[in-house]
Each structure stands twice: as structure tokens, then as C-alpha cells.
């Protein structure tokens, strides 16, 4: 309950006045008697010897006090918050992408956008339903409320990111909020610098865009990559692309770091809106390569980039097979891989192997490590039957890393199994009788299934076989080495538990099985156990040319955009609410009648 005229509650001050009157009246009311002979010292404790005393609690006094309270409440015009539908909807979409961290407006674009969004929320009336959508690497509905205070709090809580905004999803989310109650007119207001991919789809609401930002003076490292040392070299290569998005040429120094120590510095001259590529050679043994633009511009997040070099060191492969010769040869050809063999009947899951290869055998329970399943036994959960005729590849997934650079055209697959494609797997190579090779992720680890017996085909005699096995091993063992753009969902190694620590030591929320992690902030991420070396390292960079190109742009939207002005959203008329002062006034009249009756009755007795 609220009141429209709180100042009139001051009439409650009449309560002490009435009590004072009663006190005075009680002091001065005299009753003549023939003699006080029998009244003297009658009841000592009931005599009123003090000048100021408690007023007599009479029905009349209580009625008068109640009348003051009711009358004052009526004057203050109380009302209940209405539960009637809102008169309008206001959806505020705040761009929280990397470019919104630009400091061309003070303190930065996101702060400016939040300030403008706060103004809009504060100017909305009580009859307006407000929703706040954060357009970061993931679009989230922060709040949907009729309380402008709650909306402002949600706006204040919006955090920046170093990734590109998923504006399309945010836009659709805003549209779905508006479409949820089509009978209520909705306005979607976007607070953004326009640095996102368009065009935005049409949504059932009137649109307004508040442009944020006015500068373009920014240089960025838009790409960084490292690769393993080429044959004959111990030093890896690091590739860096630097871009200038300003309209004037600039000269910037680029400093390179290996595990935090500067080892090289180059000066680049960049033309207006031009790029250049640089190559660095990190020292041998470097784990993390970083590059930094020296000096400042309007967006600092894209002035630095990092990359994690491919991890070196021996990894153990457990080969479970009754006839391991073919697979042993292929596996031993892969560098930094140690092969341990065990017969199926002696197989126990020790958990130490980085990769387990089941050749012609499948245990009842699969280990948590990545798997390469070769020639699964018929009748297992993956193979239903044996096909009598040899197979050959008629369909190959060109996007699959497992078959990248592998020529399977001349391969004749012998003793092919009829594979049952699980929901978590996808065919990579398909033959006339069904899939021949599958890949997928199950329970947090990658699995590749070769649905044929290599020894019964001509594949082992071809160069494609070790390439295929090497690709499969690389794919199932692949971690998030290298670098990825901010906002990317990173897949973490299966079967490994630990704390995911982000830039500046911040703990990062990750999925329950530590499979994926959200990476809104650029920097180096570590999956680690307490007191141990990092299990996994990966780098997150801005690495998005649209975000680094901070020049404000007009978003492309598939419907008209009207100018946005705060007064259009201002409060119109009285606040929404059900006033009930007339009922109080009626009650007051009734009370006065009762009071009069009590008064006259008392006076007559």
C-alpha cells in the first residue's frame, strides 16, 4: 500500500492534541457534592494527586483517535498496487560486447549505455513493464519487472565482456518478451555502438536505438596463432596480425612475450584502416606466447593477445587387442606417444592412459579416457552385424579433422561391421552399406570408431592409414591449446577435475563435468588442481575485427526505427493503483455517527 499525499499524514499530529485536551478536561471537570465528608481518603491509590496523568481511556476517546487515523489516511489518498495489466512494455537491450569497453566516451561506452538505460527505466511509469536484456557473448534476460528500481538494479549489474555480442539472440529474446503479451504495446530500445553482425530480424515491437560512442581511434591484434616447430627446428612459430581501424596512419610498437618475459619487439607502421602480419619465434620450451601493442588507444582489451603452444611430452596409449600388430605400428609412428599393450582378458581400467584403443574388443564399461574403437565386435552396443562384402568410401565429411589430408579413395575396407550410430556420434566416412567411421563426444571425452578390421583391408599398406590414425589420435586427444575468441565455449578434457581459473585469478563457472567453460573475459585460463601444475591452459583473446573496429555503426534492422526520446516514455496521468480513500471516508462518517450516539448516551446518563 502506498499513499499519494504523504504530507497529509501530518494530521496524525492531532492525536496528541486530542489526548492533551482529554488531559486538560480531566483536570478541570468538577462535580459539586453536598459534602466531601465521606469522600476523603477514599482510595489513596486511585486519587489523582499528580497534575499530569494518564488520560482516561474512554470509548469516546478511542473513537475520536480512530476517527483521526481514518480521516488522515483518507486524506493521504492510499492505494493498493494494481494487478491490472501494464499499459506498455519497455525492453532495454544493453550491448555488453568488447567494443562497448571503448573509452571514447567517459568512462566507457558500456557505462554510458547503462546510464542511458537507467534513465529510460527511471522515467517509465508504474504502468510500464520493464525487461532488461544483456547482449554479451551470450544473450541473457536480466530482469522482467514492473518495479523500475529492480530494473535499474539489473542494469547496474550488467558486466562487460571481451567477446562479440550475440545480438541476434538478444534481439530475438527481446522480441519474445514483447510477443509474450501482444495486446500490450512494446518498445524495444537498443543501447549499442552497432558493432555486431546484422541484419537483425523483425520483432513485434516498435524500435528505438540509442547510439553509443563516437570514436574510431583503435589498433588491435586481431589474430594470433602458434604452430609446432617445423621439422628440423626446435622453435615454434607465432603469427600475429595487427590492424589499424583509425582513419589516420599510425606507428605502433609490438612487444612479444614468452611465458611472461619479453623476448622481441617490432615496430609496425600501419596505414589508415590497414593490417599487417608479424612473425615471432618464441624461445624453445615456451608454454604461453603473448603479444602486446605498446601505447594506448580507446580499446585496451584488443591490444594484447595470447596463445598456448602445443603441449609437448610423452602421452601413454593403452592398446587393448588380441592382434595388435597393425595398430601398434600406426600408433608408434605418432611422435610423443608411448604405446602399452594388453590382452582383452587382462584389461583393467587404471586411469593412467591418455588414450585407450580397443581393437576387436569392447569392455562392458568404457573408461573415461578418450577412445579409439577399431573393429568393434558384432553384438556390442555399436555394431549390430557383419557385412559380407568389402566396403569403400562413398561419402566423406570434409569438415572432419579425422580425415583431413587422408585419401581414402582407393581404400577397400574388409570385414565391415554394420555400425549403429549413437545419438552422440556422427558419420565421418560412409560406405554403401552404412557408416564406416564415426566421431563424437560421449560422457566428456571424444570417441572415434573405425567400423572395419584394418588388417583385412588394404588400408595398412597405404600412407593413408598412419595419417588416419594420427588424425584420429590428434582429434580425440585435442585440448584447448592455442587461442580462441572471447565468448567461445571451450571444451575441457574429459575425466579431469579441477578448478578453472580465469584472468587475474578469477574462478570461472564451468559445467558440472568440467567439459565446457564460458570465456567472456580475455586472458589466460587454467584448469588446475590445488598445488599442481595446470592440467590445461588456454588463451582467450578479443580477436574479432568487428569488435576492434570501434567506429559506431547504424545497425541494420528489418523494420523501421523511430527516434528514441525519454519523454515519450514518461509517466502519463496518475500512477496505476486502486485508491480506496472513499471507503475510508465512508467509514469515517459511520464512525462519527457512532461517536455522536456514544456522546449523547453518555450525556443523558
Amino acid at each position, binding site marked *: 500500500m502506498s499513499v499519494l499525499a504523504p504530507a497529509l499524514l501530518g494530521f496524525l499530529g492531532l492525536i496528541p492534541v486530542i489526548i492533551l485536551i482529554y488531559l486538560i478536561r480531566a483536570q478541570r471537570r468538577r462535580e459539586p457534592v453536598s459534602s466531601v465528608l465521606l469522600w476523603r481518603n477514599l482510595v489513596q491509590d*486511585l486519587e489523582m494527586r499528580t497534575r499530569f496523568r494518564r488520560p482516561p481511556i474512554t470509548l469516546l476517546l478511542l473513537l475520536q483517535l480512530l476517527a483521526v487515523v481514518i480521516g488522515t489516511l483518507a486524506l493521504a489518498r492510499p492505494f493498493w498496487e494494481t494487478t491490472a495489466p501494464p499499459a506498455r512494455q519497455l525492453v532495454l537491450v544493453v550491448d555488453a560486447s568488447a567494443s562497448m569497453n571503448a573509452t571514447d566516451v567517459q568512462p566507457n561506452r558500456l557505462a554510458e549505455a547503462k546510464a542511458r538505460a537507467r534513465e529510460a527505466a527511471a522515467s517509465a511509469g508504474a504502468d510500464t513493464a520493464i525487461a532488461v536484456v544483456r547482449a554479451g557473448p551470450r544473450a541473457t534476460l536480466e530482469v522482467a519487472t514492473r518495479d523500475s528500481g529492480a530494473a535499474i538494479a539489473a542494469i547496474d549489474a550488467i558486466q562487460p565482456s571481451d567477446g562479440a555480442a550475440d545480438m541476434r539472440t538478444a534481439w530475438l529474446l527481446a522480441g519474445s518478451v514483447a510477443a509474450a503479451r501482444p495486446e500490450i504495446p512494446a518498445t524495444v530500445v537498443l543501447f549499442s555502438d552497432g558493432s555486431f553482425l546484422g541484419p537483425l530480424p523483425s520483432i513485434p515491437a516498435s524500435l528505438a536505438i540509442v547510439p553509443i560512442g563516437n570514436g574510431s581511434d583503435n589498433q588491435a591484434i586481431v589474430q594470433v596463432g602458434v604452430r609446432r616447430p617445423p621439422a628440423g627446428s626446435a622453435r615454434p612459430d607465432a603469427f600475429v596480425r595487427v590492424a589499424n581501424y583509425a582513419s589516420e596512419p599510425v606507428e605502433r610498437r609490438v612487444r612479444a612475450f614468452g611465458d611472461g618475459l619479453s623476448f622481441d619487439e617490432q615496430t609496425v607502421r600501419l596505414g589508415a584502416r590497414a593490417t599487417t602480419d608479424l612473425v615471432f619465434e618464441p624461445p624453445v620450451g615456451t608454454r604461453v606466447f603473448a603479444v602486446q601493442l605498446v601505447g594506448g588507444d580507446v580499446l585496451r582489451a584488443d591490444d594484447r593477445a595470447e596463445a598456448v603452444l602445443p603441449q609437448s611430452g610423452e602421452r601413454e596409449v593403452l592398446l587393448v587387442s588380441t592382434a595388435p600388430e597393425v595398430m601398434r605400428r600406426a600408433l608408434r609412428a605418432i611422435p610423443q606417444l608411448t604405446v602399452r599393450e594388453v590382452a582383452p582378458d587382462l584389461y583393467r581400467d587404471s586411469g593412467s592412459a591418455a588414450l585407450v584403443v580397443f581393437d576387436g574388443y569392447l569392455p562392458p564399461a568404457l573408461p573415461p579416457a578418450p577412445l579409439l574403437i577399431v573393429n568393434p565386435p558384432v553384438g556390442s552396443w555399436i555394431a549390430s552385424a557383419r557385412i559380407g562384402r568389402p566396403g569403400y568410401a562413398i561419402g566423406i565429411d570434409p569438415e572432419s579433422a579425422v580425415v583431413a589430408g587422408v585419401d581414402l579413395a582407393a581404400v577397400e575396407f574388409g570385414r565391415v561391421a554394420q555400425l549403429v550410430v549413437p545419438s552422440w556420434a556422427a558419420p565421418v566416412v560412409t560406405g554403401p552399406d552404412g557408416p564406416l567411421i564415426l566421431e563424437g563426444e560421449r560422457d566428456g571425452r571424444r570417441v572415434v570408431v573405425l567400423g572395419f578390421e584394418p588388417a583385412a583391408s588394404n588400408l595398412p599398406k597405404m600412407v593413408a592409414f598412419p595419417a588416419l590414425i594420427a588424425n584420429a589420435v590428434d582429434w580425440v586427444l585435442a585440448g584447448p591449446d592455442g587461442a580462441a575468441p572471447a565468448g567461445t565455449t571451450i571444451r575441457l578434457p574429459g575425466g579431469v577435475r579441477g578448478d578453472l581459473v580465469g584472468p587475474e585469478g578469477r574462478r570461472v563457472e564451468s559445467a558440472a563435468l568440467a567439459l565446457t567453460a564460458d570465456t567472456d573475459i580475455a586472458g589466460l585460463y587454467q584448469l588446475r588442481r590445488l598445488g599442481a601444475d595446470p592440467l590445461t591452459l588456454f588463451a582467450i583473446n578479443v580477436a574479432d575485427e568487428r569488435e576492434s573496429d570501434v567506429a559506431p555503426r547504424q545497425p541494420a534492422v528489418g523494420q523501421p526505427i523511430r527516434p528514441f526520446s525519454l519523454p515519450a516514455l514518461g509517466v502519463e496521468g496518475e500512477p496505476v493503483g486502486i485508491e480506496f480513500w472513499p471507503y475510508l471516508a465512508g467509514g469515517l462518517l459511520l464512525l462519527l455517527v457512532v461517536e455522536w450516539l456514544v456522546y449523547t448516551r453518555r450525556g443523558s446518563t
Partner: protein
Amino acid sequence: MTSPAPNLRLSQNLDSGRTMLGDETFLRSLEQLAILVRRVTRPGLNGEHRGLTRSNSAEFADYRPYAPGDDFRRIDWNLYGRVGALFVRLSEAREDVAIHVLLDTSRSMDFGRPNKLAYAKRLVAALSYIALSRLDQVSVGALTYDVVDRAGPLRGKDRVHRLLGFLDSLSARGTTDLNTALRRYADTGQPHGVAIVVSDLLSPSGFRAGIERLRAARMEAVVLQVLAPQELAPAVAGDVELVDRETGEIVEVTLTEAVVNEYQRRLREWTAENERICADLGVSFHQMSSATAIETVVVTELRSRRILV
């Protein structure tokens, strides 16, 4: 039996400011009554008041044998002629009784609804009318802290108008001191008869000494206490300042039910004390409310108390 006095005011409104007696029926019933006198009579003029002793008045009552020393003017010679023995004629005494009606006119009597003083005046008028009807000698005194006014002695019903006029002229004034006022009245040289004191007895010094002084002056006394209904049963009225009409003294009190109950307990004790004093002195006592009809008090209550016969 004589007819009622003509031109008597018959209105029964006690608050009219004039003293009234009542209607004709009430007057006739008063004429049937007499004030009971137990022992005190005055020799001299024979009134119609029937005494408790035989006398030698003209109204024959009996004979007794002659004894030496008897007044032989009382010898019945006709009887001697018939029976040959001397007998003395005896007659029933018709005694002349002085009735003193003493009315408390202090300011404490000017209180209550119905007003105590107006009520008491009417009671005095009724008692005086009874006495005048019996050819008794009636005196009326107004008492406060002294005898402030008086009327009489009066005799005969034709004096009732003067009596009523006197009562009308009385107003409440002064403080109450019954002991002093009764002593002064007893000392005025009329030490005989019946003294009927009509008062609320709200005298700080009491009334015992005054009654004793009357008794010492060979007067028979009757005490009639008049209280207002508001004094007998005060209302619960919350916080009040009770102001004494005579002294102006103020008592602050919260008139709750408990306090009123305590007051009534104290009133009962006071009344019992007054009754005990009167009993000790051989004096009749009767308490009445000014709300009780005069007719009821006179015809029923005073007769049942053997104050009137």
C-alpha cells in the same frame, strides 16, 4: 374530624421553589396522624394530644374511691346518692404538646435531584400540619451553624399558611454545625416537647452533643435524615474533582465502580453509627431518600417506625 385547611397549595413539584403540602387526599391522611409523644408533656392548655396518663380534665374516663386529701370538688355526689359511698371522678388527659421541627438549612442541603432542602421543607410542612391539626403547639427552627431563623409557636390549622410562608422564605446558606445549633435551640427557654430534627447530618462535628443537650432539656427527639439519590448511589463518572458545597474543599478521585462501592460501604457504616447514637440516646432515627414520595415516607415509613401514630 375537621376539614382540610382551605387554599393550600396542592402541587407536588418539589423544584418549583415553593413549599407545598399535597393534594386533598394526602391532607386528610395527615389529619388522621399524630406525632407520638412518649413521656414529655406540658401542663397548662389542654390540646387534643391524647396523653399516656389520666388527668382531671372534663372528659370523663373512670371513678376511684375517695381518699383523704382528694379534691372533694371531684366527688360525684350523684353517685354518692345512689350507692352511699364517695367516689372521685377521673377524666382522660388531653395534653398540650409542643412540637419543635428543626430544619437544617445549610448549603449541603441544597443538593441533589430531587433537591434535599425542598424535600425537607415539604416534610417539615407535613409534620407541622399533623401537629397543628392536633392543636399542638408547633415551632419551626432553621439551623445551620446556629439557629438562623424560627417561626412559632403556632397552634391550629389556620396557621398553616404562615408556616408555609416561613418555609418558603428559607434558603440554603452557611455551614453545618448541628451540635452548636441544637444547643442554642435548647437554650432558648422552651425545654419541653418533641424536637424533630430534619437534616442530612453532614455535620463535620456530628450531632450527638446537640441531641444530648435537647434530652437534657427534657425534650423528646426524633432524627430524620434526608439524603439525595446521588449521595446514596453515586454514578461512575471517571476522573472528577468533588467540590464541597459548604467549604469549597476539593477531593480528586476517579469514580470507578470500585471506588463507588467503597463509598457506599463507608455510607453504610456512617448510617449504622448514626443509628447507634440515636439508639443510645433513646431517639428515633429514620433515613430517607429525597426521591421517595413524601406520602410514602409520612403515611408508611414514619408510622412503621412509630414516629407517627
